[in-house]
């Protein structure tokens, strides 16, 4: 049945491979110049000279459109595959009546399904994998300049996680198509379901793959501290947590030993001069020094070293969801 499925699927597969060649050619064309730009800006700057911020700005101002395209394509490909390969896989057979031809040949319905799954599934993995490889190579200077590998967009663009997404999107499309029996509504539901699941995992599942590391740092170690107004109009200090390159900061809370936050009343008590002379540096610095004695910053974060375990956990989660959907579809097909 592999041959049957391949023969029926070869046109969409060739279209996808042709698209892949175009993308690879574009990446090969623009990648070296991006790497060269990195070497001459961020790669060449010396922190001692203080020109690194400017170099980073210069580097990040380049190829903005291409970077956006890379991320959109990589994040969007699983949804496209789920909609255009997954949703019609069973739904179109049901819609056009060809299932009555397909399921009355000598092979069982489940063998037919397994053949489809093998061909379309491996094609989807190959297309997404090759695209991710090309983009990972292209993106590496950008990644070195901006250590934000855990940001939702980047985490979902590179590594092995996209393979999980594409498997899930495909299985979702097939399952929804089998239930709805119509291609078009199945495509819409697949898109919504895929985006919803991805967001749900980002917000509620991924942070809990491993218990976050808790670390208490002194206020002096914060990357910066500022003055601002809280929601109710009272003056408040703003603490920006220390830089943790490539780590995933989940929360940063400034409290004293009693668990109080430096709210307006605390500030007024600890730093009366700050309220009176808020524009001046001297009272501000002395206020921070005073607060540092009793307040500290509690950080919850996933360290950079957990990137790959998290990538595998993400792949595993989505692959497991895909497996559940495939089993469900097989069950539905059997009792159709």
């Amino acid at each position, binding site marked *: *049945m592999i*041959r*049957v499925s391949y*023969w*029926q699927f070869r*046109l969409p597969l060739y279209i996808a491979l042709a698209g892949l060649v175009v993308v690879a050619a574009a990446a090969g064309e623009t990648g070296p110049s991006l790497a060269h730009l990195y070497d001459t800006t961020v790669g060449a700057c010396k922190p001692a000279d203080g020109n690194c911020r400017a170099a980073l700005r210069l580097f990040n101002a380049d190829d903005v459109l291409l970077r956006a395209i890379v991320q959109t394509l990589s994040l969007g490909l699983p949804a496209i595959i789920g909609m255009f390969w997954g949703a019609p896989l069973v739904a179109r057979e049901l819609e*056009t*009546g*060809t*299932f*009555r*031809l397909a*399921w*009355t*040949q*000598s*092979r*069982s319905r489940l063998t*037919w399904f397994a053949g489809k799954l093998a061909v379309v599934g491996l094609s989807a993995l190959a297309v997404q994998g090759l695209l991710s490889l090309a983009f990972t190579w292209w993106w590496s200077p950008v990644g070195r300049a901006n250590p934000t590998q855990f940001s939702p967009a980047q985490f979902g663009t590179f590594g092995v996680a996209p393979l999980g997404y594409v498997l899930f999107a495909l299985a979702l499309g097939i399952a929804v198509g089998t239930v709805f029996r119509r291609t078009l509504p199945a495509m819409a539901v697949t898109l919504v379901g895929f985006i919803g699941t991805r967001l749900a995992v980002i917000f509620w599942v991924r942070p809990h793959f491993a218990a976050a590391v808790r670390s208490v740092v002194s206020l002096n170690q914060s990357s910066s501290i500022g003055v601002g107004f809280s929601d109710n109009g009272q003056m408040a200090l703003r603490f920006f947590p220390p830089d943790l390159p490539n780590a995933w900061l989940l929360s940063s809370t400034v409290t004293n030993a009693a668990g109080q936050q430096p709210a307006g009343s605390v500030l007024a008590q600890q730093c009366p001069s700050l309220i009176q002379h808020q524009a001046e540096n001297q009272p501000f610095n002395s206020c921070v020094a005073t607060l540092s004695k009793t307040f500290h910053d509690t950080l919850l974060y996933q360290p950079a070293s957990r990137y790959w375990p998290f990538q595998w956990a993400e792949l595993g989660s989505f692959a497991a969801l895909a497996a559940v959907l495939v089993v469900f579809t097989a069950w539905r097909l059997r*009792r*159709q």
Partner: protein
Amino acid sequence: MNAVLEAHGLGKRYGRRWALADCDLTIPASRVVGLVGPNGAGKSTLLQLSVGLLTPSSGEVAVLGGTPAAKLGKIGFVAQDAPVYAGMTVADHLRIAAWANDGFDLEGARARVEQLDLPARQRAGRLSGGQRAQLALTLALAKKPKFLLLDEPVASLDPLARREFLQLLMAAVVEDDISVILSSHLIADLERACDYLVVLAGSHVQVAGPIDELVATHHRLTGPRQRGGQPLPSGQELVTESHTDVQSTLVVRHDTPILDPAWTVSVVSLEDLVLAYIARDKDTRGKREAQDPPSTPSARNLKVAS
């Protein structure tokens, strides 16, 4: 094993409606069976249950002595409207059918396609209805089936295509000794091809048997108007009756000769025979509804219409 199809208490329910109910049916081998009944009688349901496309809600069906799923390789099926893959060429259909079936006669199928003047490189979606039906039949025959089931194969064909299709079918049947069942809502479509008849109406089997036997045992009786239901002699079963002021016409099934001189006995055509059984089904349902007042609007409409 002398039966190609055996159904016991077979039924299929959709929601609260039974598309097929209490179907007991045995179809002997080496017959060309016409499955006839009005639209919605359950013909398609019976055939799809027999090839495993549907699972029974009650009872069971065996084909070639096994479950439909186990016998798929020996069953040929041409579904209603002969579905094919619109985007694939005729040659593609033969190729993938050869991969999906062991012992598929690819050479024979190619020769037949050529002989039928089906354009091999044409996308199946652009074939005419008759060509599509011929392609579907070619695919089913090349499986070298023992039992061939065709669901309304000629319903959408013009008279010429209809004749060509049935010729193709009959030639193959004679050649390979295949048992065949084909459904239609018109007996006229099948009369020439079939030697066995199953009448399905109101989701029940009304009558089944060899056509020559059915014709020999059914007659139309015409005589003076009958007052009240006079019982027929034993061995005679009333199928339908109709009355004018002075005359009664009955269609009866009888095992014994009709001796009552009051009746003029005449031959019933196959078409009239089928119609008589369909009318009987409508009648009994009408009576049932008269006893139990209809509760649903659709049932009420039906009664007003009849």
